[in-house]
């Protein structure tokens, strides 16, 4: 990531953390592209689906966004998390590897994800959630409903939906940690 690109991305996240949801979605899309490029360059044949690592990393970036110091450049933080999740993925796939973080600077972004037919790790973790949380997370992510629409469909209060969404996402993240 070039100097000015990184400064721009840092600025974007800073704005997003101030409450701008559109900026946040924008940041996550850019982060996904960067992580995708980072992972694709380090994953050989078979064993690991790069998009799984991208999704786990995004989830981690989201749940741990309070660990970024807003006065620090976002690159080292973002790639440290991606590296951690990548090593985790390799460990789960049964291989030992060290990843050279210095190679980060010449990573190209990959905007497009390859689509596969089999469910991704996040989706599989979703399926093992408690029914209430699962229904809410599925409604908002897979079905694309808003919080208000989800509340209507499932007969819940909006605050209850928010709580269920948050706990559901945290539970999905925990499923990877305990593998």
């Amino acid at each position, binding site marked *: 990531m070039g100097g000015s690109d990184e400064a721009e991305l840092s600025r974007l996240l800073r704005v*997003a953390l101030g409450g701008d*949801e559109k900026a*946040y*979605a924008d940041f*996550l*899309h850019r982060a*996904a592209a960067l992580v995708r490029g980072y992972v694709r360059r380090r994953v050989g044949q078979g064993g690991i689906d790069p*998009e799984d690592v*991208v*999704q786990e990393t*995004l*989830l*981690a970036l*989201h*749940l*741990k*966004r*309070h*660990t*970024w*110091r807003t006065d*620090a450049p976002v690159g*080292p*933080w973002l*790639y*440290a*998390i991606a*590296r*951690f999740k990548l090593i985790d993925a390799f460990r789960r796939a049964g291989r030992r590897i060290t990843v050279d973080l210095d190679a980060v600077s010449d990573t190209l972004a990959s905007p497009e*994800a390859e*689509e596969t037919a089999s*469910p*991704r790790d*996040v*989706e599989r973790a*979703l399926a093992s959630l408690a029914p209430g949380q699962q229904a809410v*997370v599925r409604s*908002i*992510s*897979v079905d*694309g409903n*808003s*919080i208000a629409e989800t509340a209507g469909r499932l007969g819940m209060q909006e605050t209850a939906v*928010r709580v269920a*969404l*948050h706990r559901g*996402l945290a539970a999905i*993240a925990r499923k990877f*940690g*305990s593998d």
Partner: protein
Amino acid sequence: MRTDRLIEALKADAAVKPAPMSRAWLMAGLAGAAIAAALFFAMLGPRPDIGTAMHSMRFLFKFAATLLLLATALVALAALGRPAGDRRRAWLMLAVPALLAAAVVVDMAVMPADAMRERWMGSNMMLCLGSIPLLGLGPLAAFLLGLRHGAPTRPTLAGAVAGLAAGGLAATFYAAHCTDDSPLFVASWYTLGIAMLALLGALGGRLLARW
């Protein structure tokens, strides 16, 4: 699930703001100190002659060492609790063994050899070895919870440092009770008790500080 769908869910969850790390560490510190204090005053209490002891250099030095450990370990812990935190801050902790070594050297210069050995073994070695880990359990649990809120990329190492911080806090309390003030005693037995907490912390970090 397609990644852009996941991003929609994350965006919808953006309103739920996680507590900042500074707040997490403050709460952990307060909780840990409260638990250690409660246990200390219930089980041990300050030494009866603490009024006069406070005028002794050796007595005061114990606190300089334990508080230095607490402070440097907390700085290291905060850095280790974040991805891409400045890990070099952990080197600050080396100030503690340096300080202890200097104090031991000075003590050796002023004390006769047989007195040194007696003071090294001290009167309450076993109490010291047992009390510091015990007093440190509550703080360690609190610091590990703090790490759970963070995102340590080296969880075992971070847990060990949490143990050192807990040890610094526990040792600060214990030093108020302990009548063995020889720097050699502190350098040996306090260190051993604190090392046990570091080991426990490393295990705790490995098991609990995952994310």
